[in-house]
């Protein structure tokens, strides 16, 4: 459609103004606040505090460790599921059921899904009830509230995203390539390692990027599953804003999370592009 100059202005004006005021200005204000002290004078003290206090580095490290663990776990579970769904399920009815099972959790609040885990594994949860009923324990066990339980429940939350990302790439793969490999005598393992997997890498990259960024910024799941014992960046930011009301230091923490996330994503994409260029030339 041909769109005139005036129409462009009218159509784009609203959205640009909206995002400018409610998205870009708030971010600019936050960046500014991160460099201000309480009385409004410019200071680098917040960033100095972040850089020199090992505590913040350890929280950041834990956050990214969790993000990496979740990406790995969703890949290990999600790739086989996506592969199975694409190449081994041909019945439309079964495919439909699998898609419903994948999408329904995505449409359910993380809080409800975390609640499901609390019901099963929490101190007053079902497993503890059963164990006590059987007389095996007298005090409830802490089955959750560990770093592992944060990773597992986040992976549970993110799994459909990985499956859908990998699945859409596998689905659109040119199947004649796979047949050609078979016809030329490659066994299924060789076909998978030499053809299918390299071609599906864009899906894996897209999936793990989504999973990683959502994991490092997740707030609900870690704060419920940690029971307050392990602090990740988003919980620290929440504390600064809502408990300590230190908006300036909170802003510095937010900027740190933002910048580190973007840096890691960029590094990841660059590394993959480089290795892709050398090993899997088209």
């Amino acid at each position, binding site marked *: 459609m041909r769109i005139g100059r005036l129409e462009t202005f009218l159509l784009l004006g609203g*959205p640009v103004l909206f995002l400018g005021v*409610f998205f870009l200005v708030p971010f600019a204000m936050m960046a500014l606040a991160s460099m201000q002290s309480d009385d409004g004078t410019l200071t680098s003290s917040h960033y100095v505090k972040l850089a020199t206090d090992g505590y913040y580095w350890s929280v950041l490290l834990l956050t990214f460790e969790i993000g990496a663990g979740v990406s790995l776990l969703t890949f290990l579970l999600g790739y086989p599921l996506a592969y199975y769904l694409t190449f081994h399920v041909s019945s439309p009815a079964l495919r439909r059921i699998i898609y419903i099972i994948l999408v329904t959790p995505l449409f359910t609040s993380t809080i409800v899904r975390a609640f499901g885990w*609390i019901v099963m594994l929490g101190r007053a*949860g079902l497993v503890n009830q059963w164990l006590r009923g059987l007389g095996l324990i007298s005090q409830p066990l802490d089955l959750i509230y560990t770093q592992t339980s944060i990773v597992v429940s986040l992976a549970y939350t993110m799994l459909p995203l990985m499956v859908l990302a990998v699945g859409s790439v596998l689905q659109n793969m040119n199947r004649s390539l796979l047949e050609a490999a078979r016809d030329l005598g490659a066994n299924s393992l060789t076909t998978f390692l030499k053809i299918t997997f390299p071609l599906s890498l864009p899906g894996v990259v897209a999936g793990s990027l989504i999973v990683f960024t959502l994991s490092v*910024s997740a707030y609900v799941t870690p704060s419920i599953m940690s029971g307050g014992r392990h602090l990740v960046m988003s919980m620290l*930011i929440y504390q600064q804003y809502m408990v300590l009301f230190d908006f300036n230091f909170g802003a510095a923490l937010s900027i740190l999370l933002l910048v580190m996330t973007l840096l890691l994503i960029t590094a990841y994409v660059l590394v993959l592009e480089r290795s892709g260029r050398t090993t899997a030339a088209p």
Partner: protein
Amino acid sequence: MRLHLRSSIATHLALGTIGWLALAFLLLPLIVVIGVSFTETPYLKFPPQGFTLKWYAQFFHDTSYMDAFWLSVVLATSATLLALLLGIPAGLVVMRRSFPGRQSIAAIFLSPLILPMIVIGVALLQFATVAGFARSFFALLVGHVVVVMPYVMRTTMASLHSFDLSIEEAAQDLGATSAETFFLVTLPQIKPGVVAGGLFAFITSWINVEVSIFHSRQEFLTLPVKLFNYVQFNIDPLIAAASAVTIYFAVLAVIVLDMMIGLEKATSRS
């Protein structure tokens, strides 16, 4: 040959086992929540003991839950409408007209998808505190629109991308104005994508905690934030019923999406 066949059957079984275990892992927490919401016991029990709807009755008669429920419905509906109103024109211009900065505008519009949601929430809180609208419905609304608009814009752009330009040009050559062309030719064609984007937008707003939590007050909570506050201190069949209601909503949305455009299509687009 036989070896080949046997190994492929083994692969098939192994993949199927992992696949269905992963699917069971996805379903289990939802089934447990729904299950315990029917128990007659005043504490959580699974499998439920007996069958009662009293927790649902309690949920629907509790005005604080109902207030939260309706706030979430109104918020998600208005955020989706506003996102459609802003996202469709933006997607249209970005896909149909070339101008300097086009790519950067598209990137900025879509960036809320990859930025930490909690940072979007606190940035807006900081701004709203200065601008004087902190913790209001307005703050909730604009925050949600920022977060859900990319879904609308992305599906609009994807639909326009796979759309035959010559049909639009034919309409305009035959004398249709650009508004007529849009409503009579373009919109009917991109409708499935727009519907999918709108539905994703609605659901994203409906289940959001990370933005809402900074813009709610004690007497003014969305349903997910209310559940979140409650779960940290108390778990009982009442909250299981409240959670189960949101699961039924999700199932309903999934069925609608599946019937209107098909889940495979909808999820590969978004």
